[in-house]
């Protein structure tokens, strides 16, 4: 089957992944129902994880793995959860991409993976202090389009 990522892009990603410091876990959630882009998104994350062994991938189904989906606050498909990994332990960082990261959003996904690896948001002190002081969950949904 033809690859989604050509050699040139794979080379660029490999170069970006050279900066990975800690292993990363990607959790893909697909669905057999009403999911136009699930197959393509799964294929995409499979190809990405094949580029670097420190980028681990697990494939899940929204319905079959409902408990895990709930744990990671996944309520639709396709969803790519980008988590940290320490040995066999998966570290939930609260980062997810809902939908297929195509076009411009593809680099967002690659950057998310690098952020997860560094375990550093790059945020300023004031933001960090505020976020640390939160006593209730904060859900931020950033709507984007691929172009």
């Amino acid at each position, binding site marked *: 089957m033809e690859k989604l990522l050509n050699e040139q892009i794979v080379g660029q990603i490999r170069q970006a992944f050279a900066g990975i410091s800690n292993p990363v876990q990607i959790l893909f959630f697909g669905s057999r129902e009403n999911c136009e882009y699930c197959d393509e998104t799964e294929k995409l994350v499979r190809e990405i994880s094949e580029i670097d062994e420190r980028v681990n991938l697990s494939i899940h189904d929204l319905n079959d793995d409902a408990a895990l989906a709930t744990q990671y606050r996944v309520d639709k498909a396709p969803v790519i959860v980008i988590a940290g990994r320490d040995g066999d332990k998966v570290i939930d960082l609260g980062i997810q991409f*809902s939908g297929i990261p195509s076009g411009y*959003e593809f680099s967002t996904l690659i950057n998310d993976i690098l952020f997860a690896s560094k375990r550093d948001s790059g945020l300023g002190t004031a933001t960090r202090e505020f976020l640390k002081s939160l006593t209730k969950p904060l859900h*931020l949904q950033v709507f984007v*389009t691929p172009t």
Partner: protein
Amino acid sequence: MIHAEAVDAMEFPELTQRFSVQGVPQTVINSGQGIVVGAYPEQQLLAEIQSALSH
């Protein structure tokens, strides 16, 4: 505690409709407690989040 989600607006029309997304990026705070239209620098986005959480 913090759940950061990027949502492809084209793929989830029921969500974009629910939050009246007309341009991107649009940030929805706690399912509508606050809405920030456009790309904001970190400090301003922080102020918007703080303001949304205060009501």
